[in-house]
């Protein structure tokens, strides 16, 4: 499987470079000035979106949450989510106008000409139907397409499509139910279903979110080889620039419902011409170097309050008065590179387009604050952690990385006392920690604070921000005078860069990044010694993640905090942690200083992990002391 994938990938790279100059390939997807709005209103969710995708081309559609990328992707199938409607523009898929197509036409086109691969195959596959039945159903629903494309006997075609999706050798697959397959297999079944009728267009909606890096790589290789082999035009929706970068030929960057930049991947990543793209690239952590991440100040405008001119102008350092006066035209740069910006004279200038490298100063050995030895944990009869040793020094950040199911979150929950069925010993600041939080001393509860993964569920929606942050103070220091308490709350809110006007707000009035900052403030207000962070940036956009990570780094230095940073994001580890612990199936497979583990991994599992982690293609103009990319011969091309 992987040999096939790698070969196809190299082919893909060659084709990107040759393709545009070679014979003009057929345009299979043509979106023209598409505008989608909230039904019955004038609120545009997506406006003036135009792009084309040719046969055999993979186009990445990237943007942060709320940018409208999924809305555009669904429009390619002639679908709008409930509450939305197409207000203007056309979506032509292989000659058929999808916006005005009848239900009957759409039914014939979907699956046969344009197929969709959903984000979460576990919920897209019917749990009570066998895989075989679901695959045959696709063929049975389109007898005309099967005949027209000469796909022959359905049975043979199903075997063939499974083979193409890399599932050929799996015994008993057709008779299996979805829950009997792994996440990666489920996603490849979804791919097989999408490719079953040899569609000419395929829309992939974040198909690897939820998969671990190794499986992700397998799925991406499959997508690439299938698209190349059959000349399919693919639209790959993603928020992850590193994943997209290694896969697609063209990139379309969306911001606040508009396309801000569109061009060949090498140009968009190597010489981004829109300030938003440039800033976005600087927010992406690299697994190869420790970097200082830059967030983007401010937030994307709410669809009801988008500015008149350039949507990005309020956050743009280069904004001119003209940028806010009216719609900004699209500028054509050399090499089929389109940018919606008035300042391309400046943005085209060579400058750093990646997060700057930071020199990680070697630290003196720490005295240990938390030491876990021989920690084993179980959920019922299943052992999820076995014999884990872990040490967190004072003022040290230790990252715990692992794939889903590796037990990393369980480890965090054991340490803070949310999960109590574990054995082994955990010493904290000299004393032994009882297993459950309920048995721990007030001092220990105060000294170890936990930050949850999802800021959308970790704040009580019926409590004001002030009330949320105040509660731990009221609990641990009931004798504190009101004025002193308020003083401390406003100081900690200031520390996480939230103004005093947040006091009276409720969580649903805040963005995800703001909510996570409130959660951090709640943890910090009682001056803990150790902060346990469980995947705290995984539900946040990359630019917000950058802000949160830098905030934590600053707080760690200022307050001499120790951090235990649980994450699946290897690149992020490089930028935040000093030591790292790699978990696999509940066991520690490798641990040590970050630079050593990343550069010279010893365990075969870690070695494979490091190879599979998606890396942002190097930009043409690196900055910082580690500017070795300039020396790379193909620094401006897609380096895979």
């Amino acid at each position: 499987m992987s040999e096939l994938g790698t070969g196809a990938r190299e082919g893909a790279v060659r084709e990107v470079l040759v393709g545009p100059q070679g014979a003009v390939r057929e345009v299979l997807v043509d979106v023209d000035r598409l505008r989608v709005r909230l039904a019955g209103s004038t609120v545009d969710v997506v406006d003036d979106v135009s792009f084309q995708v040719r046969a055999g081309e993979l186009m990445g559609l990237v943007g942060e949450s709320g940018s409208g990328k999924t809305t555009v992707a669904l429009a390619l199938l002639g679908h709008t989510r409930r509450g939305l409607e197409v207000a203007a523009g056309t979506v032509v898929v292989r000659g058929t106008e999808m916006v005005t197509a009848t239900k009957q036409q759409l039914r014939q086109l979907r699956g046969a000409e344009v197929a969709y691969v959903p984000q979460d195959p576990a919920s897209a596959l019917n749990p009570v139907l066998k895989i075989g039945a679901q695959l045959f159903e696709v063929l049975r629903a389109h007898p005309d397409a099967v005949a027209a494309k000469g796909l022959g006997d359905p049975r043979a075609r199903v075997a063939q499509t499974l083979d193409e999706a890399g599932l050929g050798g799996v015994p008993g697959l057709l008779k299996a139910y979805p829950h009997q397959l792994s996440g990666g297999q489920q996603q490849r079944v979804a791919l097989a279903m999408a490719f079953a009728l040899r569609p000419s267009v395929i829309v992939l909606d974040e198909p690897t979110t939820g998969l671990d890096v190794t499986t992700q790589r397998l799925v991406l290789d499959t997508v690439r080889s299938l698209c190349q082999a059959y000349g399919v035009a693919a639209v790959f929706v993603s928020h992850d620039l590193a994943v997209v970068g290694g896969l697609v030929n063209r990139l379309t960057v969306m911001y606040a419902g508009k396309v801000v930049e569109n061009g060949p991947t090498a140009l968009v990543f190597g010489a981004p011409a829109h300030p938003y793209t440039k800033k976005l690239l600087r927010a992406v952590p690299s697994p190869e170097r420790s970097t200082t991440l830059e967030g983007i100040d401010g937030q994307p405008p709410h669809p009801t309050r988008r500015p008149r001119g350039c949507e990005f102008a309020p956050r743009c350092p280069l904004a001119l008065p003209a940028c806010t006066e009216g719609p900004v035209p699209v500028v054509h740069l050399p090499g089929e590179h389109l940018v919606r910006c008035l300042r391309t004279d400046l943005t085209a200038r060579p400058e750093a387009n990646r997060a700057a490298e930071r020199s990680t100063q070697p630290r003196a050995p720490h005295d240990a604050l938390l030491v876990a030895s021989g920690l084993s944990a179980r959920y019922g009869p299943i052992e999820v952690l076995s014999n884990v040793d872990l040490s967190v020094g004072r003022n040290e950040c230790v990252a715990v990385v692992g794939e889903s199911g590796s037990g990393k979150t369980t480890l965090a929950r054991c340490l803070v006392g949310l999960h109590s069925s574990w054995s082994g010993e955990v010493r904290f600041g000299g004393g032994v920690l009882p297993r459950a939080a309920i048995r721990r001393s007030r001092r220990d509860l105060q000294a170890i604070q936990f930050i949850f993964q999802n800021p959308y569920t970790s704040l009580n929606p019926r409590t004001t921000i002030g009330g949320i942050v105040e509660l731990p103070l009221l609990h641990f220091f009931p004798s504190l005078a009101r004025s002193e308490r308020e003083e401390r709350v406003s100081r900690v809110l200031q520390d996480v860069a939230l103004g005093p006007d947040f006091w009276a707000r409720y969580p649903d009035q805040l963005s995800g990044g703001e909510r996570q900052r409130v959660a951090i403030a709640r943890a910090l207000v009682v001056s803990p010694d150790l902060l346990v962070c469980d995947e705290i940036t995984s539900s946040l956009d990359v630019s917000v993640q950058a802000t949160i990570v830098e905030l934590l780094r600053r707080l760690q230095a200022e307050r001499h905090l120790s951090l235990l940073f649980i994450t699946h994001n290897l690149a992020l580890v490089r930028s935040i942690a000093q030591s790292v612990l790699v978990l696999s199936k509940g066991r520690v497979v490798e641990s040590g200083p970050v630079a050593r583990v990343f550069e010279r991994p010893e365990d075969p599992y870690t070695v494979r992990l490091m190879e599979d982690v998606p890396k942002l293609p190097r930009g043409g103009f690196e900055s910082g002391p580690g500017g070795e990319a300039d020396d790379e011969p193909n620094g401006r091309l897609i380096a895979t």
Partner: protein
Amino acid sequence: MSTVTDIGPGSSKPTVRRRRAWVVILLRAASLPRGRFGLTVVGVAVVTAVIGPFVAPHSGTASIVAPFARPSSSAILGGDELGRDVLSRVLNGGWVLLAMATAAMALGVAIGSASGIAAAYLRGRWDTVIMRTVDVVLAFPQLVFALLLVSIVGPTVWLTVLAVGFSHAPQVARVMRSAALDVSERDFVKAVELLGVKRRKIMAKEILPNLISPLMVESGLRMTYSVVIIAGLSFLGFGQAPPAPNWGTMINENRIGLVLNPWAVIVPAALIALLTIGINTWTDAVARVAIGIDREAETATLLEMPAVGGEL
């Protein structure tokens, strides 16, 4: 929540002081046609019951006309079985019924939500004990159960209220438990647990405020049943002692004279019907608003909610 739409995340506008969630729900329900209809209908019955005693032309207990006398100028709605003024008895006979129903509803909702939330949050043995008790009680039809309690403790007003209140509790407990199960599992509850806050406080301050919608719908529903059951008990002779006027009792007392003076039965029966229909329609409006608020959150997700990413 109406203010949320114009604040939205990320605006630097000063925050508008937000109305409490239950006030928002009530105001919005009142703006729906069915809500307005419900309120108006309830209003008629409630105004009759509350103002009635002050405007009644005669005493509710004095015999002033012949038994089952036809309406006349001295008794606009005629006389009842003992020749008392039907109008005066109707005007005097509502407020006790209303007060009893309200008290029984409040009692039932309080006991029911407390035990439902406790069962959901404490789980384990508490859950088993509370919910099996609920199952046993629910095996009896509610009116029969209330009758059983009343016949054990005797037909005084307060004991009737207690009996009806208790008979509501299991149904409320069921609904509140299922709503609280979801809330109890959310991270913000765990966050407070990690501070070592007492469980009682977590239930009252973290979980209960998130159950306002089911609580309001449940209150309306139990109010309807309270009126029906208390009126029914009065009809069956449990409730206020005989001379006192009561809409439920009046139907029973006067049904033998239905052909002579139908108003003595129709008017109290109609008022009870208005009360229950009104409350039910109003509750329906409240439930619709509660669902509508969830829908709004859905629209918000179309606009801006970030995708919650998993493992990459």
